[in-house]
């Protein structure tokens, strides 16, 4: 460790100069701002709650209920529901520059254009490509993550060192999509046209006598290589949930089956899988939704080049980079349409669970 500490401390000594007093005062005031915000928040919430406790009479319970529940309802109404409705409305409009009929000054006007934005989304080749790619992500990521997670959970069930084996596959859950993209893009997939291959996979391919692959450029397989990154992250999630469900399957059922002469493969398909089916559905739907929304991977590695774009990234580019907000809104609505079946299914299941309680 001593040999590694030296360069670091040397660097610090030399380079702290770059971090001047201005830097530290900014950081100090930012931290102070966060501390004050938390403190003020807690004080205000407590004061309101205790204030509601001073109310006397029959109305007290009602006042306190309102205090407990209104912050969440207001935040959701103003921050999520209203904006969602507004986005849907915006997706049927266009923003155009027009001279004002009276003054003649050019102003931006919102104009109803019907389905034009959607027609564009499905006719513009690059946008259409992003819709198709999103669909591919939505199908492949849940299938692969759940499949591998299930296999792994079964393989390591009650094995020696199960905890450690679980942690290893679960670990990518703690890594950001950006971090994972760097890992795969710059480390595993790196491709050099000339000279040595420095990317881990290409170096191995080189060693085995295969041609190196330009993973992020070769279309259409590059989309598949990006999908691998999300599968790498989500498999741990699938595995942990499925593993807990497998442990809930009664041991007696497996023992009875094996006495009847069922081999492990038969036991897996006739006992384990049917027993954990509800969990598999939860895992599949959860990962499906996640794979729709992730934009970090594409943005970090390809910015949508070479036919890898997805709706979530395109929506960001339209809405916040190119200033074509109505188009961005239409793409957001398309994402929403993808999840509507899942929303309906989940609400039904939730109501079923509530009824059986």
């Amino acid at each position: 460790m001593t040999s590694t500490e030296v360069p670091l401390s040397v660097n610090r000594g030399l380079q702290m100069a770059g971090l001047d007093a201005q830097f530290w005062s900014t950081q100090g005031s930012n931290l102070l701002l966060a501390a004050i915000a938390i403190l003020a928040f807690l004080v205000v919430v407590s004061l309101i709650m205790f204030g509601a406790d001073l109310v006397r009479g029959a109305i007290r319970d009602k006042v306190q209920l309102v205090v407990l529940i209104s912050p969440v309802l207001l935040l959701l109404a103003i921050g999520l529901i209203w904006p969602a409705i507004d986005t849907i409305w915006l997706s049927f409009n266009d923003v155009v520059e027009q001279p004002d009929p009276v003054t003649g000054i050019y102003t931006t006007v919102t104009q109803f254009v019907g389905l034009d934005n959607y027609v564009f989304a499905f006719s513009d080749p690059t946008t259409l490509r992003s819709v198709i790619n999103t669909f591919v992500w939505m199908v492949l990521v849940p299938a692969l993550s759940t499949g591998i997670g299930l296999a792994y959970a079964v393989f390591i069930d009650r094995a020696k060192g199960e905890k450690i084996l679980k942690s290893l596959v679960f670990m990518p859950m703690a890594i950001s999509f950006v971090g994972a993209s760097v890992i795969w893009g710059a480390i595993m997939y790196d491709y050099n046209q000339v000279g040595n291959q420095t990317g881990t996979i290409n170096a191995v391919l080189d060693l085995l006598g295969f041609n190196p692959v330009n993973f992020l450029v070769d279309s259409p397989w590059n989309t598949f290589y990006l999908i691998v990154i999300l599968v790498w992250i989500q498999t741990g999630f699938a595995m942990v949930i499925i593993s807990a469900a497998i442990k809930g399957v009664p041991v007696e059922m497996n023992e009875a089956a094996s006495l009847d002469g069922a081999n492990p493969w038969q036991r897996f398909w006739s006992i384990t899988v049917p027993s954990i089916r509800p969990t598999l559905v939860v895992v599949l739907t959860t990962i499906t939704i996640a794979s729709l929304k992730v934009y970090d991977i594409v943005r970090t590695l390809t910015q949508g080049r070479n036919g890898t774009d997805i709706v979530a990234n395109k929506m960001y580019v339209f809405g916040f980079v190119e200033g074509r907000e109505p188009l961005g809104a239409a793409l957001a609505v398309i994402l929403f349409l993808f999840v509507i079946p899942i929303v309906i299914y989940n609400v039904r299941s939730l109501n079923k669970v509530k009824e059986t309680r």
Partner: protein
Amino acid sequence: MSITMPPAGPAVTPDAEPTRKKTRAAQAKENLTSPWATAAAIIIALLWTIPTVALFMTALVPGSRYRTDAWWTVLLDGDLTFSNFGYVLFRSFGDNSTAPPLLGNVMNSIVVTVPAVVFPVVLGLMAAYAFAWIPFKGSNFLFVMIFALQVVPLQLALIPLLRILGPENVGVAGQFPGVWIAHTIFAMPLAVFLLHNFVAQIPSDILEAARVDGASHTQTFFRIIIPLSLPAVASLAIFQFLWVWNDLLVSAVFGGNKTYPLTYPISNLAGAYGEFAYLVPSAAFISMIIPLIVFFALQRYFVRGLLAGSTKG
């Protein structure tokens, strides 16, 4: 989004070992019947671990050799160095004359994350208590709606919410409060749902006894709900911490130059593939250290939160 609704209580220990005896018996059977399964498990475990190890090793490759030599070559030459870490943290992340060092973004990540964890946890617990224990008209409808909001893509709210928080209205977009508010809003459905699952399982005797003693909702909340739901609060807090710390989209939309967390410059430089690409692995590793520590130290709570079941909005 749990359909099976596994109990969220402390009873759930995902790594719960069955009794010693059973473990050994099952293990013997496992070893006899499935050497292939063990081999496959080890291969998967390796495939899932190698990339992170490779990242760390690549972060140690000096810039002069980054383009020409893989990390194992540099390792064999004894040229690995920690200097990239010091450079990106304290000197510059990119071109020395224009790009600021990452230390500022590390601080931004902290300043963004801590309040964005505290706010939704507190507000979510209040609402969770109300939905679980205070009967009122429309309670069921509202709860189902919040549950459904979990799966609505947050992209659907971004454009109008930015306008609401932007300069013409609230005027906090591009500053820390804007990012905190956005994160708090997007965390709300998960927070309410996850905490509700837990709070609803507090034995009703305890709450009824408090009511009989004349405790108001406020008193019950402070004296019973908060102390008893600390494990669930811990789960949610870890969840939200990882989510906010690792987030790029919300920070990119609602933040600005003065608030960008680690993910933002890393994503930009990683996509540029320029002469400073050699700095990206060490930066990515720096961004991963704190979440990995939190993750391994508190994995039990994190898994419990996952099992309490939900998707992230």
